[in-house]
């Protein structure tokens, strides 16, 4: 037995990166807002008080009121639910369908790849808007149909990102090594491909989250998303468009809320990405 370098210090848990902490904190804020809205909001966020319309911030209305005299703060709290729901479900759909599809395509090649990637192409060419219109028209527009349409529309992005990453991973020698030890394709996908494309997929998730939240806003505006009077941040922002010159705060609050949520998820995504890259933080 040779002598070994004295003490190879045991891997100690190091403090998670700052981005991760800040991201988690922001996401927590949004989650909290959503949770709080279930038990308490200062006012009924759907109730209009025409007499109190377009007020600035005050003790009674922390963030003022909108054109219908609804309390903006209540709307922001309540809207967190919709935002989280739409973002997570849409991204979830795309992630759960697109990523395996892309990995499958990248690993199997041949007919499987051909069919799944062409399908993704068609889907990509198929405007999410059109899907949303169809769902809206057939099932009646709602948060659910919007979520579905956005989710479906985001699938090709995930599929392509996953596939291109998979192609690169599959050309490495450690995959050869795994094949040589008779690992099933599934296991190679899970243990080799997935961890090595995770960085890109996480970024894709956080970007898609942002896109989903904003797309819900756009769909709501076109009448294809969350129907009024249920407040969603996106629609609050859209509705404030006309007031940019006169009551800019109406745009600032939902804008800020969206920014916080998106920023939170992005930072969380970046943080996770960096955390899971062993080379970047000494692997501890």
């Amino acid at each position, binding site marked *: 037995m*040779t002598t070994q370098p004295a003490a190879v210090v045991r891997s100690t848990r190091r403090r998670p990166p700052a981005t991760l902490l800040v991201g988690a904190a922001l996401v927590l804020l949004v989650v909290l807002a959503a949770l709080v809205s279930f038990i308490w909001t200062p006012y009924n966020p759907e109730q209009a008080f025409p007499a109190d319309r377009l007020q600035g911030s005050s003790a009674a209305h922390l963030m003022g009121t909108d054109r219908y005299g609804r309390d903006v703060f209540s709307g922001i709290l309540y809207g967190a639910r919709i935002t989280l729901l739409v973002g997570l479900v849409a991204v979830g759909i795309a992630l759960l369908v697109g990523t395996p599809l892309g990995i499958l395509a990248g690993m199997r090649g041949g007919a499987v790849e051909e069919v799944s990637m062409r399908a993704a192409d068609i889907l990509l060419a198929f405007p999410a808007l059109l899907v949303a219109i169809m769902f809206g028209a057939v099932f009646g527009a709602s948060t659910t149909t919007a979520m579905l349409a956005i989710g479906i529309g985001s699938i090709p992005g995930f599929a392509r990102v996953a596939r291109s990453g998979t192609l690169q991973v599959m050309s490495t020698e450690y995959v050869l090594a795994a094949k040589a030890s008779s690992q099933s394709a599934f296991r190679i996908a899970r243990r080799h491909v997935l961890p090595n494309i995770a960085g890109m997929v996480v970024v894709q998730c956080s970007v898609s989250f942002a896109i989903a939240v904003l797309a819900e806003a756009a769909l709501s505006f076109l009448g294809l998303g969350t129907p009024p009077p249920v407040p969603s941040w996106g629609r609050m922002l859209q509705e404030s468009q006309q007031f940019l010159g006169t009551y800019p705060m109406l745009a600032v609050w939902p804008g800020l809320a969206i920014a916080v949520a998106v920023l939170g998820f992005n930072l969380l995504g970046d943080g996770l990405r960096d955390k899971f890259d062993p080379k970047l933080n000494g692997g501890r």
Partner: protein
Amino acid sequence: MARLSDTAPVHGGPDEPLLRVESLTVSTQDRPLVSDFNLTMSRGERIGLIGESGSGKSMTTTALMGLLPEGVTATGSIKLAGHDLDLVGAPDQQLRRIRGNDMTMVFQEPLTALNPLMKVGPQVAEIMLKHRTASSRAAASAKAVELLAGVKLPDPAEAAKAYPHQLSGGQRQRVMLAMALANDPALLLCDEPTTALDVTVQRQVLDLILESVQQRGTGLLFITHDLSVVANICDRVLVMNNGQVVEEGTTVDVFSRPQHPYTRGLLAASDLDATDADGRLFTVASAGGYTPPAPDHLVDEVPAAAVHTPGTGAKTTETEAPAPTTPATGPAEPAGAVVVGPETTAPATTTLDAGAPVISVKDLVRTYQRQRTSLFGKRTEVPALRGISFDVAAGQRFGVVGESGSGKSTLLRILAGLDQPTSGSVRVAGNEVAGAKEHELAELRRQLQIVFQDPMGSLNPRMRVQDIIAEPLLAPGQKVDSARQRKLVAEMLAAVGLPADSADRFPHQFSGGQRQRISIARALICQPRVLVADEPVSALDVSVRAQVLNLLSDLVDEYQLTLVFVSHDLGVVRYICDNVVVMNRGQIVESGSTEQIYEAPRHDYTRTLVNSSMSLRAELAAREAALSG
């Protein structure tokens, strides 16, 4: 710009040492990797750096270059003649002018050290363009081809247009070397530059290094595990262990009168002719009973052809390996591929089914299409295997030696079912590999494991060592619970000489040799019937090498493991294998029992090969002779 060459340097007199390193310490946040390293090197001096794998050799040289990985820092002082500044902590701005020009380095792992998306020619040319040592882009390209020819790359003009992954391991290593020599540096740092080279090419490359070093007064710091190489080219030796220099002196002194027990151990382990009481190779731990070679009474043992004096070696080897002229055993006569009966060389256990060979290769051809270099350019064909045939019987230890780029790795990949032959047939343990579908190979893979040539590339950077090694246990059909997995992994780690806590670390945190051991551990954990190993010990220090070779021997004996062993180190092959085939340019030029091949080589190429191999004793003797003569 101060360029150091054979002419007078800009600063300081000729007495000023070329390199002065004082109390260099390299450490991560939680432990030192190298402590208190001191070195003074004068112009033209050739210093060898040897030591255990993971002892900090690479870290030391990387620190000299100022290129330590993230999270690793250096303190102390490094002074290079002609530059006033201390290289430790010098601004990158300044170091940039030194790196690649006054000081160059050949990195340890050639696969990952080359940009995979750039053709190698331009990668070599770049270093000249960067330091304006070539007048134009065209001149640089032309010079690059010249340099590639200089490092004995066959068809250098074509090779310059290849991407790294299209070259064999040894070829890539030579590309690195060409790069390092391009600007005639004042100081050349070589981190195991010849591990992947076969002996003939190694000889040529060493001569090339020696030649340029001697002509230009270049200082050379040479890391290697091969003590005979050190004896051959170095004036002085530093022995490192555990991050510290434990012994230092002239080559002859250190090797013939080692002071430190570790040095003694190294010498013992490197001596493949010496075994301990149990008939096993010495390791550092068991080196107690070993007597180092005393050169004076060994001179007469040296075969004449193996005596090399620095600078003359090139003449003894042919620059171009001879084209196969009716080899003794050629592709035309597959039957001639000798199946050496187990009885002739079989190790202790002889309960072998001598009937069916475990591996049977017939007329194997593999031709690579080298990708079109431009979208519309034409493809070139690279015949990696040109029709080879041989059989391997169960329990046999089958060696494959041969020139770098002769198709050894390709052969192994095909044996493992990881690549498909262009034509021919390969049967392994009763399974036909050629044309087999992925699922049809499952059975093969249960029985066969492979150790890859490039250790880093074959380890998933995102998996912990525990999971990497345990991977084969997860293959379908295996049922091993996680507690048992941990236990088996721990056993394997011990068997290949890695500390138990390695299991929780990631591959990039290991030295080159340590990585190789990880991949060996992975291959052996599920006790395969057949192990194909591609240069499994070339990156290992001699002690670990001895340990691994002992391990392999044990396994072969215990489990009737059939071993296919590729190595350029004839000594190792001779030690471990009972049968050998010699490959050259995609063909088997000779095959037979080890003794037969080594003692009475019939083919020209085999002769060159045998003659080019160095042994520590011979080298030391030559050095003594040169000194006294």
